[in-house]
């Protein structure tokens, strides 16, 4: 390559002419404009691939939703007897799957509530605090209302999934799970 052609192509970053540049740069001149163009183009390509990943994530949610719907309603399962729990007492139980821990709390003589024990923030186990009318998550200090499961404080955005209960005689049954956005 002759000098004049090389100078046309090469714009050193300090703006000085090629003759004023160090020898290594004169021997191996870099076409900075082209280098900038290629790096931006490649970053654009990377961002388009990221965009594809986000779209794939959306379709993954569709698949998960389809599988969840196919599973159907949770079965009816006896979880405790009414005399097992004093007022203000709580009991942990597994429902509906073997890895889903839940909490049953007796709030009054004839009132029972049950929620999933997993905090809706990062799935830490919540602790019932009936004296403060709340479930408390010690990981990030999230709180949920004991009566409704709604968020009171902390980072969780969604209420605790509520377990539907039915009392037949002195047996308490779990009959389903209600998940809510607000």
């Amino acid at each position, binding site marked *: 390559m002759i000098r004049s052609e090389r100078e046309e192509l090469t714009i050193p970053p300090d703006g000085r002419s090629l003759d004023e540049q160090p020898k290594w740069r004169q021997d191996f001149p870099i076409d900075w*404009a*082209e280098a*900038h*163009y290629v790096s*931006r*183009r490649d*970053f*654009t*390509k990377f*961002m*388009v691939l*990221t*965009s*594809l990943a*986000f*779209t794939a*994530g*959306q*379709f993954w*949610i*569709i698949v*998960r*939703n389809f599988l969840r*719907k196919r599973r159907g309603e949770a079965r009816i399962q006896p979880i405790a007897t009414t005399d097992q729990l004093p007022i203000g007492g709580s009991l942990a139980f597994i429902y509906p799957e073997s890895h889903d821990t839940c909490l049953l709390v007796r709030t009054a003589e004839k009132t029972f509530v049950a929620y999933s024990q997993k905090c*809706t923030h990062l799935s830490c186990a919540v602790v019932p605090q009936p004296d403060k009318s709340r479930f408390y998550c010690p990981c990030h200090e999230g709180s949920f209302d004991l009566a409704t499961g709604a968020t009171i404080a902390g980072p969780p*955005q*969604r209420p605790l999934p509520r377990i539907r209960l039915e009392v037949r005689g002195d047996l308490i049954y779990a009959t389903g799970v*209600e*998940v*809510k*956005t*607000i």
Partner: protein
Amino acid sequence: MRRPFSREQRLTIVYGILCIVLIIAMLQLWLLMATMNAYLGGDESVIWPAALVSLVGFGLNGGLLWYLYRIERRQ
């Protein structure tokens, strides 16, 4: 026949396209988080519309990238 773009013009174009692609990708990220939140909360109504909007966003991004490679091939 139209003249091919100069190097400076192509650099300007790639900056413009990069800005648009970044904005669309950020919107897609927000959409994915909102959809995940709705799905975990049992709200199924937004899942399909959100997936279609995200697909449109990806289509726009892909189209812009395709345009970038097309103007390169014309050089």
